[in-house]
């Protein structure tokens, strides 16, 4: 099957998921993850390719892609910052933290910095309620945040592409 935009590797990775489910449609969420990992977001040609691979219609793909908040329907920055704004984080300073990040990056939530490095999104509860305020950047959680920590994390990411302040294995409270 000729793909519009997906690479051979992406196609192979999607097809490798088929063995896990009794039908092809069930591979839709995994397939969209695989595409997003390769391309950073879900373009319309990519979604049409997924539809072809799964024997479903492009509308069925679009229907699902627009329902789940983590699928990006447009390109995002290299570092996708998602700050939790739900109650437990809100009680310990999420709003002030969000204001600080917006000021520091000179963007509003929903925007990307002009150098394409950082996108900011406000999100609902990420299951880090005892260690807020917190944010997720790409695959990593950053918890117990302060303005100083945010400065360091953003600097680390810009310079090194990663930050040692990312949460390792999660334990709260730390015991032993």
């Amino acid at each position, binding site marked *: 099957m000729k793909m519009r935009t997906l690479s051979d590797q992406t196609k192979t990775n999607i097809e490798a998921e088929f063995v*896990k*489910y*009794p*039908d092809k*449609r*069930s*591979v*839709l*969420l*995994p397939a*969209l*993850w695989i595409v997003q990992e390769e391309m950073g977001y879900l373009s319309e040609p990519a979604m049409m390719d997924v539809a072809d691979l*799964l024997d*479903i219609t492009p509308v*069925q793909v679009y*229907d*699902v892609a627009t*329902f*789940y*908040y*983590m*699928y990006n329907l447009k390109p995002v920055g290299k570092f996708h910052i998602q700050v939790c*704004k*739900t*109650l*437990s984080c*809100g*009680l*310990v300073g999420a*709003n002030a933290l*969000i*204001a600080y990040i917006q000021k520091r990056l000179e963007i*509003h*939530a*929903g925007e990307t910095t002009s150098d394409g490095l950082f996108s900011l*999104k*406000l*999100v*609902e*509860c*990420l*299951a*880090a*309620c*005892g*260690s*807020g305020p917190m944010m*997720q950047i790409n*695959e*990593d*959680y950053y918890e117990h945040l302060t303005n100083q920590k945010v400065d360091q994390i953003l600097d680390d990411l810009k310079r090194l592409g990663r930050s040692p302040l990312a949460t390792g*294995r*999660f*334990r*709260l*409270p730390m*015991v*032993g």
Partner: protein
Amino acid sequence: MPVYEKILLKNMELSGYTGSLTDYANTGGYSALEKVLKGMSPADVIETVKKSGLRGRGGAGFPTGVKWGFIPKDHPGPKYLCCNADESEPGTFKDRQLIENDPHPILEGIAIACFAIGAQTAYIYIRGEFFTGAKVLNQAIADAYRAGFLGKDILGSGFNLDIYVHRGAGAYICGEETALLESIEGKRGKPRSKPPFPATHGLYQKPTVVNNVETLSNVPHIINRGPEWFAAIGNGKSTGTRIFSVSGHVNNPGNYEVPLGITFREMIFEHAGGMQGDKKLKAIIPGGASASFFTPDHLDVRMDFESVAAAGSMLGSGAVTVMNEDTCMVWAAMNLLEFFHHESCGKCTPCREGSAWLLQILKRIEAGDGRLDDLKALESLSHKIEGMTVCAFGDAEVAPILSTLKHFRAEYEAHIEERRCPFRPNAVLAMAH
């Protein structure tokens, strides 16, 4: 402070414990699966779990063994088990800790459950944000296959089982069991009308059990130590321990595993170290954002399913959110309505439209533009949502409003009379997408 024996958090507190298969095996891991496969029938296993009194740790508290017993025995199959690792109820962060630090008890619990109900395929539905958790689980699954605890003819018993990790992608509603099934099937996570129930028409319309991570983690211990041991822990019909996630204005937020039935007072002031800065306690959410608010008058309520329900709320997911005297209750309700409005799947009109109207009114009150009849409007709208939706989301979204109106009505009135928020003069940041 009272000290209790931990069951689920015990391993990870051992020095040097990594959660690897080797470490788990050294604590006796997978001996329960061996015991089941070598000497018990599926009916024995179900009976044992029924006798233990184990109830679902995800939110609803349904007896686990009874749920397993609903799976038709004469069905030709396939049958499925789904492990709900979609942990999304605001305030809850226990499953994340179990998954990342001790994944094998979950797999062992899944294997025992699958043997009991006759399933040969299980899916772990994990929320999309848990990248780390998904990696840990995939590694643990690969190790368990290599050691012969998963795959074909497990431990020579003839029992076959495959476990797959299925990642969600950011939708709270997928923690609702039928929405979870829809999501695995590659659809929008919209809850199904019940009946039929998943026990007969679940994943791919086949008999299916959906169990929470913490629920399944308890199963190997019940097999190893016996149902009587488990049933002796806790209070009445709420047996065993529970991991409570405590957050908000306490000195030591965190996950605390205690027997069901201790008081909120003990949890907040002993285990979680009391109130930050010795501020006064104003409100407690006892079981996640879907549960009605409690006040300091409820501190001596016991943390078990029946006691919390009798006091007018629910134990839910075990998430305890603590708020001090400086917290504006209108803001707290508004914050949660932003959550519910954002997460409503859109299937049922009362929930979809109602959450938008409720949020609009709350924002108006919080901003100082409220009118006195807004309080009546909040109540009447809430009552038109409650019980009128396919899933429990509708009831959940009105719980913060109805309970804050009940316990803190004067605060709403103060916002309206003073035409401002008495607690937070600066308007809260609007949600941006």
